[in-house]
């Protein structure tokens, strides 16, 4: 387990370094990075200073080393617009984004697991049918559109739920649905097919033969097995949630990284864009690592592997 963890950690580090190269290369794509990194009305002094700190007179690999050297100590430069370190700006906003992504993921899992299980147990039943339509719709609608329609219905028309804000539980509802609806279909499919496999397995047949109540068979003995394939994909879905958060945050006035970075793109506030993208990548890698580790919780075979 420890060795596995070590290997994964190393792989993760490797990925992050790779990501930093991608980010760096793209940021140099358009020729003079100064044009891109500073707003048009930037004072001359700022341009000169940036030229110096970026080492633009040196070869590309040396520039990358400078970039990574700064990045390692958390120095992505100061946000031109916000007059504060880009890193701080991003870190302050990271928790809100993570919370939103987690809530979105929770919503999707909370829908996908029961629907997947029920549709595997009673194929063609009403839960199966309604659940599948619900899941397919989520996969066919842009998250921001869903968000707007939800606000129109639940905030403006019915006044049941708040349309914006960050803090109380009710404020999470609409953003979490907008964000978490999309992966429901895929997750349902995973749970459903895993459940079908498991329900057809010898140990479930044995459980049944020994008189275990159906309720326990489905929701305890089968589900824990069927959860493993879903769990292995959660890292990917969490990443998708982070991506989706960039869009949903704008709609719901969510104080997260996504909105900050999107606005920074338009304002050509490149330190913020770099730091934001870098941290999303790190978060992504970290979440995958966490998921890898969590298999062990559900699957004892992994716990003892190697």
């Amino acid at each position: 387990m420890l060795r596995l963890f070590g290997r994964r950690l190393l792989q993760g580090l490797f990925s992050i370094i790779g990501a930093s190269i991608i980010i760096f290369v793209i940021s140099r794509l358009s020729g003079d990075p100064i044009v891109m990194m500073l707003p048009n009305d930037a004072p001359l002094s700022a341009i000169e200073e940036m030229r110096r700190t970026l080492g633009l007179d040196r070869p590309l690999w040396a520039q990358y080393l400078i970039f990574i050297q700064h990045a390692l100590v958390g120095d992505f430069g100061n946000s031109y617009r916000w007059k504060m370190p880009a890193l701080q700006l991003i870190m302050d906003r990271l928790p809100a984004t993570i919370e939103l992504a987690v809530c979105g993921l929770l919503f999707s899992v909370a829908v996908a697991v029961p629907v997947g299980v029920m549709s595997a147990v009673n194929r063609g039943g009403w839960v199966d049918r309604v659940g599948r339509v619900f899941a397919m719709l989520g996969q066919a609608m842009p998250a921001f559109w869903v968000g707007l329609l939800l606000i129109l219905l639940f905030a403006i028309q019915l006044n049941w739920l708040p349309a914006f804000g960050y803090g109380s539980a009710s404020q999470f509802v609409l953003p979490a649905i907008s964000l978490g609806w999309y992966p429901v279909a895929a997750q349902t499919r995973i749970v459903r097919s895993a459940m079908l496999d498991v329900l057809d397995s010898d140990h479930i047949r044995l459980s049944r033969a020994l008189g275990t109540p159906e309720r326990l068979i489905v929701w305890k003995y089968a589900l824990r097995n069927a959860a493993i394939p879903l769990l292995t994909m959660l890292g990917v879905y969490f990443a998708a949630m982070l991506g989706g958060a960039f869009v949903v945050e704008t709609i719901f006035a969510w104080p997260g990284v996504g909105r900050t970075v999107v606005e920074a793109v338009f304002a050509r506030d490149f330190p913020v864009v770099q730091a934001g993208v870098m941290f999303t990548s790190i978060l992504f890698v970290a979440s995958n690592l966490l998921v890898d580790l969590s298999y062990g919780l559900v699957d004892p075979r992994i716990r003892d592997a190697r």
Partner: protein
Amino acid sequence: MAQSLQRIAAAAVFSLPFLAHAQAPKPATGSLAVAFGAEATVLDPTHSSAGVDQYFFGQMFEQLVRTGPDLKRLNWLAETWSVQDAGGKPVIDIHLRKGVKFHNGDPLTSEDFEYAFKRQSDKKISIWTHLQAAVERFEIVDPLHFRLHFKEGDGSYVASDLTLWAMPKRYMEKVGDEAFERAPVGTGPWKFVSRSVKEEIRFEAFDDYWNAEQRPHVKNLTIKVIPEDLTRVAAFKTGAVDWIDAVPPAMTEEFKKLPGVVTASYVAPNNMYITMDSVTPESKFYDVRVRQALAHAINVDAIIKGVLFGQGQRYVEVGIGELGYDPDLKPYPYDPKKARELLKAAGYPNGFDTPCYNLTTPREPYQKEVGEAYFAYASAVGIRCKVVGMEYGTWISFGRRERQGYVDGLYSNMWGHGLPGDPGTPWAGHLHSYVPGKGWGATSTYSDPEMDALVEDLKREMDIPKREALIKKIARIKHERVAGGLTTYRPLVTFAWRDKVTFKPWPMAFWRSMQEIGLKQ
């Protein structure tokens, strides 16, 4: 509405000097939440890089003079001020108001303004140092009296409310710039409490505020930041906030009908115009007749009504209320026939194709759609537009001469300013010829020595009535030659609040100043 505002403002002008300590104001109570569609980035006015920054710092910081709700200039932190002549060079002589305190209790003195002046002249701190370039020397006469010595005349200094912000020197030197950004201290009616970027800023009414008459009547104010229109509207309708800015134009009619809701619309000081290259001889728009044809081709009134839901105000060169506004200057009438004739006279009987660049990032409501409408009208008379969309980042480079040469075709543009406004500075940027490195014509598409001379005169002129006359003169010539672009409209911004709220819009922060807001008793 306008009448009542005027009356109140007039009263304020006369009564202010006596009111400062006349009576102890009742401490405000209660809480109020409002929502803005856009967010300021920095809280220190010296760091400001965009007008939107005023939304927050404009509630906490104050200037020497200020524009009142009726768009008349009021002496604010300056009890009196005057432009004097000292051996051929102008001097602005300022007496500070007595008894003004910063939020931390420090009294306001001349040193604070000297400190502000130094920071506003420091290239490392401010991007607006050119505004101080004409000031030669800051002279402190006594703690409440100082003088600004100018190298040469600088009309924009006067036009932009004497530019200086009252900054607490002692406090700032103690805590440093970074800490100040996180806990700013000014003289304004609102005291900073806390801020969460992309979420909200919290203020508390400043009990020791010097102006007992015009001040908030609620203790706590929270400004939420909700950029998405529908979400902001939902926040208001669900009662999460009691005041919102920028009601979407498409919803203003609906809002006016809502029971228990008050709305008010004001001109946003952003002047929309269409630019075209009139410098390069090869440009189709080098010929004044083609520019006039364009002016006749576009039905701005129909666009305001149809696209903007009436939430726009047509203007010709100088907007209503702005210095030098000339009611006699009329826009080119919508006349497609005349437009075609002018094109024919210019040698384009069959019209011509041209690229037309449209800003797709909505800096103002429905700007993209307005652009599409402009270009559709132009195409109809023969100025056949091949529309190219541009997001903000591309667009802003587009207008900068030092980054990009003259661009063929049409593109939509705008200039913003404080209220009531003075066209001197914008004209120096887009009407005067481009002079590399001198600051003239940074976004210019026009070149004319006669116009250059007039704009330079205006730049130096500090006497208000003389400025006004000069502006009117330039505006007429500019209009006739369709020089420096075709002016079209200024957007209206609509505010809505529940009738339990009392709110009088002050033009600071583009009418979002919370100078006089409160809850009905």
